[in-house]
């Protein structure tokens, strides 16, 4: 396969401000190479990741979503990452019902000092999504009025 034709997945990375985002920053200032496919969206806490954000990202054309927060017990807000864990596990089941491979959603614990881990996760996840191929949305999620955002939340 020629270089131009290679599938470049678009991945949204929801990173918490205190651990994962700082870790990603560290990877950057340490000049580590990581896949540019992860498009970072900073939140204060992984607990802020509303499941609708993930669905919306897929709807808008993301091929994968990475949610990264602090290691268990290290959350800046004490337990936001546990909430993220619970929601992610539930959301994976919902994704299946939408016909989205649950591997396209990944939850990782990355501490502020783990720049190297961020780079590794970004690279691994990019390769994994690349292998899965582009996300093909079912018509329902793409256009269906029954799945307008507000309804998904309700």
């Amino acid at each position, binding site marked *: 396969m020629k270089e131009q034709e290679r599938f470049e997945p678009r991945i949204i990375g929801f990173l918490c401000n205190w651990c994962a985002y*700082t870790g990603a920053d560290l990877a950057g200032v340490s000049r580590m190479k990581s896949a540019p496919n992860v498009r970072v969206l900073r*939140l204060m806490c992984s607990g802020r990741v*509303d499941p609708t954000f993930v669905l919306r990202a897929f709807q808008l*054309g*993301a091929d994968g979503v990475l949610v990264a927060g602090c290691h268990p017990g290290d959350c800046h807000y004490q337990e936001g990452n546990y909430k993220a864990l619970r929601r992610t596990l539930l959301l994976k089941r919902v994704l299946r019902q939408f016909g989205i491979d649950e591997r396209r959603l990944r939850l990782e614990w990355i501490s502020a*000092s783990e720049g190297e881990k961020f780079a590794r996760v970004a690279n691994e996840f990019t390769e994994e999504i690349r292998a899965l191929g582009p996300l093909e949305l079912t018509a329902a999620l793409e256009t269906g009025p029954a799945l307008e955002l507000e309804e998904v939340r309700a």
Partner: protein
Amino acid sequence: MITVNINGVERQVPEGTTILQAARALDVSIPTLCYHPWLKPFGACRICTVQVQRPRGYELLTACNTPCEEGMVIRTDTDNVRQARRVVLELMLARWPNVPVLQQLAAELGVEKPRFRSEFCDEDPEACILCLRCVRICEEVVGASAIGYEDRGIKRRVVTPFNRESEACVACGACAQVCLTHHIKFEPEDYRGKPPEFLLGPNTAIFIPTPQAVPKVPRIDPEACIHFKTNGCQKCVEVCEAKAVNHEMTDQEIEIEVGQILLATGYELFDASVMSQYGYGRLDNVYSALDIERMLNATGPTGGRVLLKNGQPPRAVAIIHCVGSRDENYQRYCSRVCCMYALKFAHLIKERCPEAEVYDFYIDMRAFGKGYEEFYSRVLHEGTNVIRGKVAEVVQAGWSKQDEGTLLVRCEDTLIGRFREIPVDMVILCNAIVPQRDAERVARLFGLSRSPDGFFLERHPKLDPVATSTDGLFVAGCAQGPKDIPDSVAQASAAAARMLATIAKGVVEIDPVRAEINEEFCSGCRVCNALCPYSAIEYLADKNVSRVNSALCKGCGTCVAACPAGAITGYGFNDRQIQAELEGLLAVR
């Protein structure tokens, strides 16, 4: 008070005073063997015999256990007394002819050779003379009763129960301490593995840690103190006139409400015994940097002299840099301070032992600070041998033909490209600075992050090097990373100034990132109430809505994501902002 007359001198003494105590108060010497001021009078040896005048003649009594009586007339220097003491001593010498304390007393009393012979003669100079001070101190003072005596008369012996290793023994050494003949010996344990102040030479169970200790008060080591083992002893309580010794004292938890905290929890020294090739903890005269720091201290155990374990000054000293630091197997980082203190050691050893050769083994010499490079060249001019190369191992050099040194340092000298073996007397290891072993627990407690090397992480290495990711929490010194004293002082001053600035301002600015509940949309389901880790959401029962206390809210947004009605807005990160960000991020392929 009663009046006694000793050798013609009248003296008032309190009632219950023994003749021996009264005599000693008058500087009248009475020889003793089994007597010990801490113990109850025993009267076993009879050497303290004195003469007490009675209405009809006199009586010979032991001074140690006879209380004074009103008007008692006591003589300690008559021929009768001397004769009695001589007989006692002759009998003892017959049995233990070579014991130095007895020989010394014999010389004082003019006994040349005992007239008697004993079938049980023991010629050992360290024979037990059955004063039983050991048995009594173990019972009366220590409270362990780990030793006793068996049999009677000529067969009496000091033994442990059933002649086995006594389980009651607390290894305090008191018995050996009071033994007159060194019959009981106490071999102190190896002090390695204890805190630095113990490392060089033995210490007592109650001690002032260092002469510069703050607060400068003695402390009790409960692991070494006899009282904590047997409930006995407490001799320190008896002698303390200020009544300041308290064995019941326990750790107290004191709660203090504060608004800001400076974490300056320092560092720990890398345990060099892990690197067995350097022999720390295994070979004599291999020291860690802190051991040597203690030895070089004028108030240290050697008074600042550099000495080997045998008390001699060293002829050659090796200083090994980067022990456990800049090492892929242990710590990858540079400990920063070692090069300079190693040069300081070289300088001080040259000063205190001008004859000694000093070898300094380094990987790279990092003289990075103000005046440091100048100090390095000064040390070079003083004749320190600096060798660029990492030491492979330190071994015992017992086979050395000229007996030039007791240790052998093997290394590669990378500047001349040769393998070298250098005989030395003393090896000093420059251990890496490592995080405190409870750093992880402390980090969890304060909600801090740690850098990959385990030290506490500052908020930003350049823009905010003293703050942490938690508001009001600052970090300074080696808790944040290895650094020398000037750097620690600078960082701590900066942190203190930052804290004072907040105090001076009188108000705390909080991030605008907060959650707010729109009461029109809130259904009062209370899902958010339980989610908030700060209990910042209160439920208003009268209105059937929840409300965020914005002073408590930290803005994590967990409740925002969970609200089934979408009634909560997270300022700074509201749904619309994030959706817009998503759209923007995914707008380009």
